[in-house]
């Protein structure tokens, strides 16, 4: 045992004066942190993930969780994380998996962008008294319109518009598959999106019949594994999304372990029970932009050109050029997923080190599409690291039409971002398929929370717009004048095309 045990990360303690030994902590912790020893509850802090389920369920507030101070020798380079990763790999010889988004302490650019507000010369608009328009249409737009005057002098529109998705808010929910999350969790998201007048993605897991009542709010995904994809699935969705990449793990595919493939998941994904669902990094029929364009058109043909088709890519260094290529296919929207995007499971080394921030990616994509004169013809959806309404507003000011939220929607349902999704033991019934855990999530209640979150953020976005004297989302889109950079370097300001504060 050259390596031996490593120090505790969290310490759980029970206040024995308050505890009434009811056992809810034992029942609620799927990680085995609490157990009975005779008639007394004992704690094994070593297994704790800081999911907070025990604390939330304790009726006497008897449980305390503290982050255990690191007792390694302090070192600026060989951090606790660096050393423990090595111990872990030295023992196992394997890739380290991680759940949720990038956990590196890099400063979010959003936090260094400040929004504008009107003062005397132009009045701010009060959203409580004046109309505020956040309605957003996602899809292809013509570059110009043609009219002719009829005999009676009335105007006749001659240009035919492509189908667009109509959103009551620029906030959508990103793709989280049945398999990665529970059916109850997906159902709650679907109901929440329906109530909020927006859309969510199925992820690459197919569409379970329980979701059918909400199919008009679903964007069906076609990933490299093609799980659950048939023409019925395509036709059920309001739009189709081809997933090329994902912000949390650019350049690699997905892997749902066989243990999570229960009977229901196997039916929905159209794969054998208990088999690993592996979606490889590349699609087997896409090795070039031409191949992608062909798949876009094939999906449109299959659905009689009635559905918008999105293409999702991870934010990588060359993202702008890739998006420009996608804009020239028949695709209706490009989804750019930044390096803070969440995931059920990713190799930690990818999650924390590959890709670029969404702020820079959206800005670069918007700029490139404009310079090529095609920005107006395709929608841009930003995702990966949207944590509040200000981030939504800033993403749109940087050039996005709309955003996808992922982790934020899960947090609205109770997720505590403990980052252990890949273990399938989510105590909140979200990232798990274990029936007893899934049953903990009430889809009705959580749908309301999700809808509440979207409503609340939408109101905040409209207040921020009103403060800036803007009453329609179109006038916020790409409006870099309404942003200023604070403590950002000159190079990044140039990429963002944003002036520094005071300028």
């Amino acid at each position, binding site marked *: 045992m050259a390596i031996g045990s490593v120090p505790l990360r969290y310490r759980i303690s029970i206040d024995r004066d308050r505890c009434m030994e009811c056992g809810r902590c034992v029942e609620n912790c799927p990680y085995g942190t609490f157990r009975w020893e005779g008639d007394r509850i004992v704690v094994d802090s070593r297994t704790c993930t800081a999911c907070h389920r025990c604390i939330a369920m304790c009726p006497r507030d008897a449980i305390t969780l503290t982050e255990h101070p690191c007792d390694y020798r302090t070192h600026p380079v060989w951090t606790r994380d660096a050393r423990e990763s090595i111990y872990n790999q030295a023992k196992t010889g394997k890739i380290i998996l991680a759940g949720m988004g990038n956990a590196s302490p890099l400063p979010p650019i959003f936090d260094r962008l400040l929004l504008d507000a009107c003062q005397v010369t132009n009045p701010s608009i009060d959203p409580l008294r004046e109309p505020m328009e956040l309605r957003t*249409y996602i899809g292809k737009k013509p570059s110009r319109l043609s009219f002719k005057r009829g005999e009676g002098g009335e105007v006749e529109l001659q240009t035919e518009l492509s189908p*667009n998705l109509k959103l009551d808010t620029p906030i959508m929910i990103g793709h989280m598959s049945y398999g990665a999350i529970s059916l109850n969790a997906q159902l709650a998201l679907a109901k929440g999106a329906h109530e909020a007048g927006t859309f969510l993605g199925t992820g690459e897991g197919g569409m379970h019949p329980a979701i059918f009542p909400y199919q008009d709010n679903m964007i069906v995904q076609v990933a490299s594994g093609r799980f659950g994809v048939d023409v019925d699935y395509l036709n059920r969705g309001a739009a189709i999304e081809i997933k090329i990449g994902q912000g949390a793990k650019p350049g690699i595919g997905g892997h749902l372990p066989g243990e999570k493939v229960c009977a229901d998941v196997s039916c929905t994904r159209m794969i054998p029970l208990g088999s690993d669902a592996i979606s490889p990094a590349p699609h087997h029929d896409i090795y070039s932009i031409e191949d992608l364009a062909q798949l876009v058109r094939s999906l449109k043909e299959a659905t009689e050109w009635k559905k918008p088709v999105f293409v999702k890519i991870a934010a990588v260094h060359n993202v702008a050029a890739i998006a420009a290529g996608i804009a020239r296919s028949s695709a209706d929207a490009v989804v750019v997923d930044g390096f803070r995007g969440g995931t059920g499971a990713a190799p930690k080394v990818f999650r924390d080190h590959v890709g670029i921030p969404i702020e820079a990616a959206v800005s670069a994509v918007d700029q490139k599409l404009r310079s090529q004169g095609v920005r107006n013809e395709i929608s841009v959806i930003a995702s990966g690291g949207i944590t509040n309404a200000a981030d939504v507003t800033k993403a749109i000011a940087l050039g996005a039409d709309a955003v996808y939220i992922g982790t934020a929607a899960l947090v609205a349902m109770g997720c505590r971002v403990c980052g252990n999704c890949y273990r399938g033991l989510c105590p909140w019934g979200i990232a798990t398929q274990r029936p007893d855990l899934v049953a903990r999530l009430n889809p009705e209640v959580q749908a309301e929370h999700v809808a509440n979150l979207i409503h609340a953020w939408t109101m905040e976005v409209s207040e921020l717009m009103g403060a800036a004297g*803007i009453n329609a989302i179109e006038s916020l889109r790409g409006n870099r004048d309404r942003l200023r950079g604070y403590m950002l370097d000159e190079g990044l300001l140039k990429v963002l095309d944003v002036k520094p504060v005071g300028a």
Partner: protein
Amino acid sequence: MCGIISVVDRAGNLMDGSKIKRALSLMDERGSGEGAGYAAYGIYPEYADCYALHIFFDNIVETKSVVEALLRTWGTVVHDEEIPTYEQPNLKKIHTPWRYFFKPDAALMSGTSSPEEDIVTYLVMKVNTTVPGALIYSSGKNIGVFKAAGWPEDVADFYRIQDYEGYIWLAHNRYPTNTKGWWGGAHPFNLLDWSVIHNGEITSYGTNRRYIESFGYKCTMFTDTEVVAYLVDLLARRHGLDKEMTVRALAPPFWDEIDVMPEKEATLNRAIRLTYGSAMMNGPFAIVVANHDGIVGFTDRIKLRPLIAAEKGDRLYISSEEAAIRRMEPELDRVWMPRAGEPVIGRVY
């Protein structure tokens, strides 16, 4: 603040500039003495086939030759002269205003259906972005913009506005905020046949600017009004939208209004918002846009700036204040306040 007034004689009869000077001066409280200007259509009948380029030179030694070399490269200067000005005690002469009557050589601009306009647009952008000390601020046929930093009456007297006769007049009294009161920043703003006067502040400028620049326009005047002239040029000239449809794109109805329209009308308005969302203007504004065949006035969608219209016989007036209109024409047939976003259009018969 800012005061605007405009008039069109729909029968094409000419009016001299004396009345509009008096009307604009009535709105001195809307300005700060740092910018005023006039635009008139029909003032150069003897050079009606030429583009009248009005240019401010910081001096006529170093920059004028550079501009003239460019003009000679792209066409012929039929006539040029210093725009006559008359010294005013309250107005400091900063630039030398010069006018060129210019005929572009259409053969030099290939691959376009409007080579002459494209040459002139190119020259405006080229000079204004690459020739320091020169600014082309008026470039239409048979029209001219006259502007400077000063009170309306001083600017009018400086150019002797009463000596010009036009069938459309636009005038503007400026209260500058976003940029200092400089000659180029005074209104009207002009490109080719389009002239714009504006009271307000366009909060969507960042969006509009990025949109218009992707079509090759370059915003050089450091003010939000400039973008209006370019948007109108793009929509009305290059995309061929008529005045009503252009205004519909710039200040469209709200979605709630569109939703209750008859289906055909709703489809039309939805298409305009989807296609021209980035051209839509936001923030407080009252704007009058003119070209050779008329004027159109409109406000932002919640009417955060005043706009009033009036008629007397063939003449249609649009202004910030009724009192200013009555200074030009005390007895009016009709006076009304247009609704937010609703265009008031005066076409020359």
